[in-house]
């Protein structure tokens, strides 16, 4: 984008090269095997993106939402599911610690998370509380100078590989009595349940986090009791902007792959790019990609300038993933029978795309947030 800083442009190049070298060649393999590309994850540590928004004091890159979104797009274009794991680590875990944890906690956890030595995850959702995240029931009960945590988190990206989990718990009867802990696998403060088999995002392990009366010292608590509802809402804004970057990357991959195929594939004596119905698919998806790109990066830039807002983050998250799924459906259609075969990547793009309409708040939850905020303020746009 014309308004990227030189640093952001440089990052874009680094991420693009990295994705071509480390992610793209293995994307199909890990999708098929439903396995995690741990080697690539470790190497993300080497290029310095695992703490993309974290402070340089702890080894982070000290960059903002724009930069993070750039990395999501570039990685997402090559392997969306590795990117989802990267997002869970760097935005859901590292960024939360950076923003909300104490200096001691940051010193303890961030360097190893940012170097890639440790894998991080974030546990909010539970089997009975997904959209209604504020209703979560995993309990942390204070006993002397310790807490005992009991409950189960569901759908946790990286659960089965995580060394560190950033976990929301309930510490009181009122809705807003939510408190966060940073938990360590080494100390057996959580266990991972079985891996969940999925339609897409298959290279990103998803699983349960189980707390069976885990004993946790108070030093693992983030902030004060009851602080978490605010932390949660604030981080969700960045999450929604950056996860839309994965959709953007997938959409770009679709456009590029379609243009290539339409120039190669011949039917009725002509390359199919000659037919108006194919031209329509390509023209529309490219226009939609450009529209999404401008929207997403301009929102990210505003966010970096401090013009934050849950409404616009939800608008991004409502608009972009939906269009990306449609683009992926069209990309398969454009490839005909070949599009349905695993030899071409477009069917994977579709399976991966759908997740962004569900994770980090479903489309319907975005509608609720946007409508609530717009109706409440009743301001002109």
């Amino acid at each position: 984008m014309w308004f990227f800083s030189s640093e952001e442009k440089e990052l874009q190049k680094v991420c693009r090269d990295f994705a071509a070298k480390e992610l793209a060649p293995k994307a199909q393999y890990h999708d098929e095997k439903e396995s995690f590309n741990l080697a690539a994850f470790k190497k993300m540590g080497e290029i310095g993106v695992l703490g993309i928004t974290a402070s340089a004091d702890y080894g982070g890159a000290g960059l903002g939402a724009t930069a993070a979104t750039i990395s999501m797009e570039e990685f997402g274009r090559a392997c969306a599911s590795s990117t989802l794991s990267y997002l869970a680590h760097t935005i859901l875990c590292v960024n939360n610690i950076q923003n909300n944890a104490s200096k001691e906690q940051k010193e303890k956890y961030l360097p190893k998370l940012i170097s890639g030595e440790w894998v991080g995850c974030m546990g909010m959702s539970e089997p009975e509380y997904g959209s209604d995240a504020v209703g979560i029931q995993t309990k942390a009960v204070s006993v002397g100078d310790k807490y005992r945590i009991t409950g189960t988190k569901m759908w946790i990206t990286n659960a089965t590989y995580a060394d560190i989990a950033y976990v929301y718990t309930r510490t009181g009867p009122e809705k807003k009595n939510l408190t966060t802990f940073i938990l360590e696998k080494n100390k057996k403060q959580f266990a991972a349940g079985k891996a969940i088999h999925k339609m897409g995002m298959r290279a990103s392990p998803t699983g349960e986090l189980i707390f069976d009366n885990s004993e946790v010292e108070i030093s693992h608590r983030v902030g004060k009791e009851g602080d978490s509802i605010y932390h949660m809402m604030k981080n969700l804004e960045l999450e929604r902007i950056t996860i839309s970057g994965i959709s953007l990357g997938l959409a770009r991959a679709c456009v590029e792959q379609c243009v290539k195929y339409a120039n190669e594939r011949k039917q009725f004596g002509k390359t199919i790019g000659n037919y108006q119905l194919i031209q329509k698919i390509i023209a529309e998806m490219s226009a939609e990609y450009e529209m999404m790109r401008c929207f997403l990066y301009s929102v990210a830039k505003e966010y970096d300038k401090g013009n934050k807002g849950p409404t616009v983050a939800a608008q991004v998250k409502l608009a972009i993933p939906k269009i990306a799924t449609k683009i992926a459906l069209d990309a398969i259609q454009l490839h005909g029978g070949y599009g349905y075969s695993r030899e071409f990547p477009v069917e994977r793009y579709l399976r991966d795309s759908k997740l962004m309409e569900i994770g980090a708040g479903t489309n319907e939850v975005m509608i609720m947030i946007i409508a609530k905020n717009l109706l409440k303020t009743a301001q002109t746009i």
Partner: protein
Amino acid sequence: MSEERLQLESQLCEEIKKFTKKNIWPEASADDEKQIFRKEIYQKLGDLGIAGMTTSEKYNGMGLSYQSYTRALSEVARASVAYAVTLSVSGMVQNIISQFGNNSQKEKYLSELAKGQEIGAFALTESNSGSDASALKSTAKKTKGGYLLQGSKIFITSGGVAKTYIVMARTGEEGAKGISAFIVTDGMKGFSYGKKEKKMGWRVSPTTELIFNQCFVPKENLLKEEGEGFEIAKAALDPGRVTIGAISVGLAKEAFYQAFKYANERKQFKKPIIEFQAIEFMLAEMNMEICASELLVAKACELLDQIKASKKNNEILKNTFGKYASMAKVKASDTAMKVTTDAVQILGGVGYTAEYPVERFMRDAKVLQIVEGTNQIQRGLIARYLKSEILG
């Protein structure tokens, strides 16, 4: 509609439901993941009488209408699109042999297909000719007592598990008029199977490459005359499209049913999620689209049954049927895609996992918009049918 027919259909659907519940549902997800096709399931579906529903009773078929047949197919598709397409393609092969075969060909091939003991497959597509099917390059060279087939076919449903293949190959000039249709059977010398596709969906149904290397096919396996192959394929594809429509309807119905059930059970914010308008309206819309598709499929079947019953060659009726067949295929498959995608959305996180079937439904839906003529190609056909309908 006759009372009797409706009763028979309902009874059959009940039996299919019972059968699929016991035999298909339990392994559906695991078989999908591992791409396993079970011939014994197909054969048992045959025992229910649905492998040759429109084939004459003389050849062990049921001699029923397309209206009944498509209802049964929809019912199978609710549990498994893969077995439903196996039935549909095998039905298409019987249809071709019934319509274009001579008596000895009918005697020889129809019964075992109609009973469901064996499976039929239809081989038209090649790597460089999909939509442009008449550009196919496989050849059949005349030799003593028959033909030598040379070339390969890709994306062939039931390749490797079928016994009887209708294969289109070139015996003459370029273009549609140089194509002939042959009956090729499993085990013929020079006929082998190439790679089996790994696919997004329809994973239980094998999709395979067929390879012909100087494969000798006796002349009695030629259908009709040389050069009639493409007309035969076209005549089979119209009813084929209606069956794809019916399968789409079945798939969409099951996806809707699962989503509806879940929306009534799942609570968030202390209410069943169906009480939120976003979900409620989505479900209403889904059902509306399904009903519209079902009606189009039924209309196409009615016209087809009329054509089959009439002794005269009625070009206007055929044209109208062709239009409805294409429309039913496009509308129903587009609906299946949309409804299955919405079903995943309604189930949220669990919808995305293999623990619930809706993600499989979504994967199974996509190719319905591609096979038997892509939905783009159908639009071209519809416009052509409209031209003769309106301008004569």
